[in-house]
């Protein structure tokens, strides 16, 4: 849309989220929706990140804290299981890591350039509580 002229868009600066009929949106997962190019779902904020979360599935207990507290709809949960991170929409805030209750954490922040496989291979061990 970058260079569209004044005569090339909907009047009133109105935007539509979906192509065609929306159907039961609350009952349709994102991958099954027909978003238009105007839905911010089609956009990416990946370049905002300085740090990124990496998910170590092995430790995850599927508590869903990360899902509920992620401000950017970037924790992908399906069938009550945490399955990964939406790296187009994650802004790298680190909240998911803070709220993850496992020991070691199932999510940790790393520099954006970090290599996921390498980090997973050297995931920190269980911490023993001081005190």
């Amino acid at each position, binding site marked *: 849309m970058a260079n569209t002229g004044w005569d090339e868009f909907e009047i009133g600066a109105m935007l539509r989220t*979906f192509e065609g009929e929306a159907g039961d949106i*609350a009952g349709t997962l994102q991958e099954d929706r027909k978003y238009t190019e105007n*839905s*911010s779902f089609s956009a990416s904020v990946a370049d905002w990140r300085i740090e990124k979360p990496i998910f170590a599935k092995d430790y995850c207990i599927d508590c*869903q804290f990360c899902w*509920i507290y992620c*401000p950017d709809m970037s924790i992908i*949960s399906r069938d*009550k299981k945490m399955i990964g991170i939406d790296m187009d929409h994650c802004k790298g805030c680190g909240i998911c890591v803070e709220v993850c209750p496992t020991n070691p954490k199932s999510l940790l922040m790393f520099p954006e350039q970090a290599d996921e496989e390498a980090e997973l291979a050297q995931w920190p061990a269980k911490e023993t509580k001081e005190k």
Partner: protein
Amino acid sequence: MSEMKKIKNLKEFSTSADRFEGANLLCPGCAHSIIVREVLNATNDDLILSASTGCLEVCTAVYPYTSWDASWIHIGFENGSTAVAGAEAMYKALKTKKRLKQPDRNPKFVSFAGDGASYDIGFQWISGCMERGHNMMHVVLDNEVYANTGGQRSSSTPIGSSATTSPAGRVSYGEKKNKKDMVAIMASHGIPYSAQVAPNKWKDMVKKIQHGMEVDGPVFINAVSPCTTEWKFDPKDTMLLTDLSTDSLVFPLYEIIDGHELNITYRPKEKDIVPVEEYLAAQGRFKHLFKDQYKYLIKEWQERVDANWAYLNRREEARV
């Protein structure tokens, strides 16, 4: 009336399909978004939404993008509530006149607005909406400051907070006025439901939102929304700050039914109550209060919070 969405636990909640999208322009770690998600995911019904000018609005509908999966409207800073009220009136009219395109739906009308848009400039509009009995919910994203315009004070800004229009300085400890009790003011409109919520207590939030959506008539919700930018804390700590706000009882969670019956809905155990000082210490906006000359203000803060908590308890007990 449609079936209320069943949300027994967080796992069940996590099967919700969000109707609010990422790649919006809110700051990393912004609590506004967490609140919006919890509110929208509390129901599967159709939604008619509005936002008043403020962070939520300017970050979620910047042409040519929208982050909203339901019909949404923004008019101005003060009138988001009335936008939804107008839409609700049209819904009623078209229902009577049998002109709804999908007459079997059961839409919920929700207006989101900041504390500036609610406590200050939009106060009269919201009061009007509450008084007239529209079937709608107004949700305040209460970050106690005009965040979108760079941190000016609002009538929700608490004493001692440094805001850009009430900055702390050599001879000032910042904001001088106490926060306005908006929930009480709205409850005294005699509306069927008003409540204070916090996104960390998602279950309490969902219960209140669902109740609010079920009742007939206007509902007012005040949601604490820690702002990483203006409260000055690290974005990763948004939930920590929310915990501190509820557990210090600076933001007690309660509901008021029919304008009078008050119930406290979150009661931390005595040993878990966090000193207000800890809540203040976690935020840059209160940093100056820790200078010797202003320490008395921290004590006064604690006394105010204690007094308010005692008051809420008395009201709950008295059932009035």
